[in-house]
């Protein structure tokens, strides 16, 4: 018996596990943090929340992860291993670049925060390194987004504001999905890199679905209902405000 016909089958099997080598370009996103439309400047001018309480901001950080690109036919293409920590205090962190296969896309989707799998997978590195101060050690899990500041309305010592939003389990999962349709389609080529500006408005954290009054709530540092409520507010904080597609 000479089962030569098995040869092509084996060959197919061998190549089946080979990684696809589609031509890759990339996309650059710059995050611009604002408060009610006014550019955010840390530790300075006071802003006013929807409840009329003034406040300043000392820290503003959030995770952007699980980026997907939506093709013109609405199919979704995942950007593997995409985890970024945007930190207002670090200029370099506010511009992120990720690989994208050559093609045309109509929208960008991502999660605010870190998916549940990475919350339970042990020691991580890069943006997810706990050295970044975005990981709760006593109750394992990532802080998805963090805002700290001060407000005369706060009853906490030093009139501080501490909003550490996290939790990836059950009813109060604070990981939020965002889908942003681009005003023009994004064409990724070998020589062509779309550059997006996404504006994040901190004002949304405390208004929208759930009004947050600093006089009543000035600190969150555990997962739970309050953290989740703020996450349902801030899932609407992003807008694509500029696209350069050259």
């Amino acid at each position, binding site marked *: 018996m000479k089962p030569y016909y098995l*040869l092509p089958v*084996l060959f197919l099997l061998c190549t089946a596990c080979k990684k696809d080598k589609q031509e890759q370009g990339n996309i650059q996103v710059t995050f611009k943090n604002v408060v009610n439309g006014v550019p955010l400047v840390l530790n300075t001018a006071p802003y006013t929340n929807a409840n009329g309480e003034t406040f300043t901001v000392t820290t503003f950080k959030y995770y952007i992860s699980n980026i997907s690109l939506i093709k013109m036919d609405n199919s979704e293409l995942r950007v593997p291993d995409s985890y970024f920590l945007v930190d207002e205090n670090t200029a370099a962190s506010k511009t992120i670049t990720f690989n994208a296969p050559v093609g045309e896309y109509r929208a960008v989707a991502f999660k605010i925060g870190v998916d549940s799998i990475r*919350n339970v997978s*042990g*020691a991580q590195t890069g943006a997810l390194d*706990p050295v970044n101060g975005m990981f709760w*050690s006593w*109750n*394992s899990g990532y802080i998805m987004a963090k805002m700290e500041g001060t407000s005369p309305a706060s009853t906490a010592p030093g009139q501080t504001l501490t909003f550490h939003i996290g939790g990836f389990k059950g009813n109060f999962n604070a990981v939020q999905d965002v889908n942003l349709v681009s005003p023009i389609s994004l064409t990724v080529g070998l020589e062509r890199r779309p550059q997006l500006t996404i504006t994040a408005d901190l004002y949304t954290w405390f208004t929208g679905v759930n009004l947050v009054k600093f006089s009543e709530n000035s600190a969150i540092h555990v997962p739970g209902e309050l953290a989740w409520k703020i996450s349902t507010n801030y899932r609407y904080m992003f807008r694509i405000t500029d696209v350069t597609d050259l």
Partner: protein
Amino acid sequence: MTKYLIYAGCLFLLIWSCRRNGDVRPGTQPYTLELPSNFPAPVYDMSWNPLTVQGVALGRRLFYDPRLSRDSTISCGFCHQQFAAFAHFDHPLSHGIDNRTGLRSVPGLFNLIWQKDFMWDGGVNHLEVQPLTPITDPNEMGEDLARLISRLNADQKYRGLFRDAFGEGEINSQKLFKALAQFMATMNSFNSKYDSVMRHAPGVQFTAEEAGGYATFQAKCASCHKEPLFTDGSFRNNGLPYNPYLHDAGRMRITNSTGDYLKFKVPSLRNVIKSPPYMHDGRFYDLFDVFLHYSENIEQTPTIDPLVKNRIPLSNQEQRELYLFLNTLTDPGFINSKSLSEVLITD
């Protein structure tokens, strides 16, 4: 002949192309972990952190290095003493830098790869991130993680050891935690007299009193302290009177659920004779106090566990036999293991 070679070649390519990148790094020797046949499969997935001789040795050095703490006084091994099955002998509450005292007792460290969560309240969900809590807790080692990582990177000896275990590149927290996890994965206790009896080792059997204690254990303790790990890993309120000085809500702190008020993890009973004091706050120095608690002093609260609610009466004879049975859970090979003992760090 040629075509067989081609088939063999294709098969090799097939396996090669689908392989997982969990292999041991070149230049390291794989560490063979001996596991007992009568235990379930480990929870900790070592294919993501393959044990190597170099990695385990590095983890052991880190475990015993007091420089992991803010003022270089407290190592992991300071509280986790080998002779006490890596609990803190004679200390009801954990100790830390600056004479600080923690909220709970030091749990023994063994069979951690079978544990799905850690700490008395189960707040830590993975063996690798477990050390982050004691290292950064102000009541324990009180160090800032970023400072620790830069200190390790500035240390020539550690740079070499990390390179040997994990390859070139900066030391980061992931490498630190993986090294510690590798050492902790080797802290396993399964060679007590009890184990020998269960495996029908020639010439080993329980004495009449030990056998009587085992029967009592199976009837009155084994549903929570489930064999062979001697814990079912659950969280329960075992009726300890509330300690107003500690204000410890237990598992409720993690879940925010009032149903978890005063619940703590069921600890393993392996090596229990070696690791007093007992309970999450170390309130009992003697096992007979523990027996007395279960047989007479259960405090009724809304979250009391149904299995202890009506108390667990234990006669004097049952208590004595139970003690002698629990003594068979001591694993001298583990407690005296040369591969787990303290390393003196002079450089």
